């Protein structure tokens, strides 16, 4: 799947000095990075296989500066790519050679903590985990916990609608934010939502969340804070097979229990984890299910007993229940280290991210295995089992001829399989550039055109993060037209915009 980005516009490249000079009228000179060596630091995000040297990097510190940069970009017809910590795994923050990279790292302050209304106003460059650190002394936390939470920023979380192991019970970013301040192309500053719930009129706050930086630049986020549960206990449940583990997951949910975390690893991952940093996972298990139950001690004790019973009935090889906070964290240690551990059993891996209806898990894993064998590669699996979000890790060796291409091909085949069984192309990492050309597997041309018309309402000239999410860049004028049917345009009265 060769990935092509829009060709850089020579007219923009030739005006680079002018663009840099104009940016330096807006920002202190040190906040405009024009030097090639310094720009190299920004040439990719966490999907490091795709790289591009940005035209120039701008590091604003105030909303007025962001607004001025956007207005300038609109005036000079230059593209903009917003970026937080650059932890995107789908290339959402991949720079453009003819575009300004807008680094939001200087927006790193927590502006207000309001315990009474259980919310905090933070700047987009604040790290996810830093929010919890700032409020945990009072017993609160911010629930969405992507694995990258020590590094990723809340602005990026909004862009990608990030989740994590807590989201089965506590929701994704979209369910945990109350307000946004955004800057549109052209420089208009808008506030969506606030400390209150559910503004009437269109839910642009919900639309912005997960829009991958294509609609506006986030300059402030109001997040919901939750009170930490009184207690949390973990269960480590080894099963002889993935099928048995999957049945157990289904049975827990069918019993009406929504755990705080519900994760699964297959045998390949268990082996990798144990050789990387042993944490006592049984090596003979075909799959391990980790369940976390949280709430009041009485409720958790009650639910632990119920889940243990379910696990035994579904053929668990043993049931381990954490007796201390240290033990609970030990159960999680392997899962949290699964990605670095897998990188020790093969030189390189490609992490995929699809979601499927949970009960299709055994079938999908069998077919995934068959696909992998057919192209001579191995796949290790960790999943957010509770919500069917899979992360197949495709092992390959970049130094071998053709391995990257084979791995990408297998990744695409796996995502097609997810869609075929009723799932989706991405559960949490975003479409970005990585899955852009697969969007047609899930949506037809009409569906995609309607999504792009929404883009046009925000950014009619396609200057904001173009080349991401949509396989074909349409001009907004084209999208204003209607499809011609039986040789005639059915509604000549529709305005073309």
């Amino acid at each position, binding site marked *: 799947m060769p990935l092509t980005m829009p060709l850089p516009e020579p007219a923009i490249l030739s005006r680079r000095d002018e663009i840099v000079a104009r940016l330096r009228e807006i920002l202190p000179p040190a906040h405009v990075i024009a030097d090639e060596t310094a720009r190299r630091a920004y040439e990719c995000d966490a999907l490091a296989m795709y790289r591009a040297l940005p035209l120039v990097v701008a590091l604003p510190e105030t909303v007025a500066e962001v607004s001025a940069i956007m207005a300038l970009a609109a005036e000079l017809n230059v593209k903009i790519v917003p970026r937080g910590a650059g932890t995107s795994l789908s290339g959402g923050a991949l720079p453009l050679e003819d575009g300004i990279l807008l680094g939001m790292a200087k927006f790193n302050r927590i502006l207000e903590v309001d315990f009474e209304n259980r919310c905090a106003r933070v700047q987009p460059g604040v790290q996810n985990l830093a929010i919890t650190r700032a409020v945990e002394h009072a017993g609160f936390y911010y629930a969405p916990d992507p694995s990258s939470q020590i590094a990723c920023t809340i602005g990026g979380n909004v862009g990608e609608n990030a989740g994590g192991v807590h989201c089965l019970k506590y929701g994704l970013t979209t369910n945990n934010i109350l307000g946004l301040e955004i800057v549109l192309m052209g420089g208009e500053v808008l506030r969506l939502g606030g400390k209150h719930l559910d503004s*009437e009129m269109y839910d642009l706050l919900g639309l912005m969340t997960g829009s991958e930086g294509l609609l506006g630049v986030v300059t402030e986020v109001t997040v919901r804070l939750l009170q930490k549960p009184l207690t949390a206990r973990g269960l480590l449940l080894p099963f002889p097979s993935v099928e048995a583990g999957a049945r157990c997951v289904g049975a827990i949910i069918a019993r009406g229990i929504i755990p705080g975390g519900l994760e699964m690893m297959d045998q390949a991952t268990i082996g990798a984890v144990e050789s990387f940093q042993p944490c006592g996972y049984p090596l003979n298990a075909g799959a391990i299910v980790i369940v976390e139950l949280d709430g*009041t001690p009485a409720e958790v004790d009650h639910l632990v007993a119920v889940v243990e019973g379910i696990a035994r009935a579904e053929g668990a090889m043993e049931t381990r229940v954490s007796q201390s906070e240290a033990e609970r964290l030990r159960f999680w240690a392997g899962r949290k280290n699964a990605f670095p551990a897998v990188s020790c059993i093969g030189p390189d891996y490609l992490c995929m991210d699809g*979601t499927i209806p949970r009960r299709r898990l055994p079938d999908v894993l069998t077919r995934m295995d068959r696909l992998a064998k057919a192209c001579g590669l191995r796949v290790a699996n960790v999943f957010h089992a509770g919500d069917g979000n899979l992360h197949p890790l495709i092992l390959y060796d970049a130094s071998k001829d053709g391995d990257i291409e084979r791995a990408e091909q297998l990744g695409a085949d796996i995502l097609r399989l997810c869609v075929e069984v009723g799932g989706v192309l991405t559960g949490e990492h975003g479409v970005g550039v990585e899955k852009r050309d697969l969007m047609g597997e899930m949506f037809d041309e009409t569906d995609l055109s309607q999504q792009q018309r929404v883009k*046009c309402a925000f950014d009619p000239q396609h200057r904001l993060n173009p080349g991401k999410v949509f396989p074909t860049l349409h001009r907004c004028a084209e999208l204003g037209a209607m499809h011609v049917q039986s040789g005639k345009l059915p*509604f000549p009265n529709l305005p073309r915009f």
Partner: protein
Amino acid sequence: MTPSPRDETDVRDAIRDALAAETPLAIRGHGSKAGLGRAAAPAQILSLAALSGVTLYEPEELVLTARAGTPLREIVALLDAHRQQLAFEPMDHALLLGGARDDATIGGVVAVNASGPRRIKAGAARDHLLGFRCVTGRGEIVKSGGRVMKNVTGYDLSKLVAGSYGTLAVLTETTFKVLPQAETEQTLLLSGLGEEKGLAALRKASGSPYEVSSLAFDPRENIAALRLEGPEISVVKRRDDLVALLAPLGAAAQTLEAESSRAFWMRLRDGEPVAAGEGVVWRISLAPSDGFTFVESLRRNGAPLLAHVYDWAGGLVWLRLEAAPDAHAGAIRAVVDRLGGHATLIRADEATRATVDVFHPQPAALAALTRRVKDAFDPLHILERGRMRADF
């Protein structure tokens, strides 16, 4: 003639006919929410009542798909049989707007983003809509989202159509995340605290780790109400802990057991405390700590307040006031704008709803963007013209 499409293609044809003739369409299920929103010019009715039926329900996957005209009561009965629920507990507008009880359709629930007291913990209707199919105002069949819990593939258009009052597209099919029903519930009632102290107690409880799922204050009876849901053993323990936490306030505590608790929250959900009697009804969303300040400001300014009640720990205020030509929009919105929030006129006569902004006015740049989003789906303003705003 009212078109009564039986499937999605019929809906598309009806919209294409309307486009060709430039006839605005008003979208109706059973009409239980016809009185909500601006009073718009007459339009041809597009009835979705025949587009009915649950097309997919997988209890173990927590997912349900239904055609837009499916009666809500049918869905609730089906979920009940599996001890599951729509956790956002959609409100029933019949007490406020008239009409038969239990007569909503699922499409209407989505169209107005109807949520109830549990919204503060469980989320709104829009948070539970996983995906949908629709016909846009351009006469095109479009799908968005999916049927799985975690999905970030493309824009989240579910958020956009939920609460859009049918102005963007005609929903044909909706897919929801459903959740298990709680094993049981209880409501702790604290009486005699007064409004200000009662609301402070609610905020203290909402910041406690006892997972209170609904928090209301009813001034008629001077009662603060706190709902606890879950396994019996846990509910009882959490109620006792809450009583201990709030004991220093010196209120008299009483418990509503499961059945009375459910009935209490259903009455609140449907606006019963403000529904009966003459007058206009408003629904105000603001930061919980501003609820009391808002009502006090109105009182100080001499607004003719007839009844009010606080939900969402003070973050949602229902008000009934004596009728007035502007329905007191100016006075209410002046306070809301100062505090930050949103005021929606829910009940008033047609003449008032045709002249007063029913939805909170937006700043110019946001209004312009909103209009561009409308145009992206429905450039000729064929769907629900004038229902949300006078200019579309």
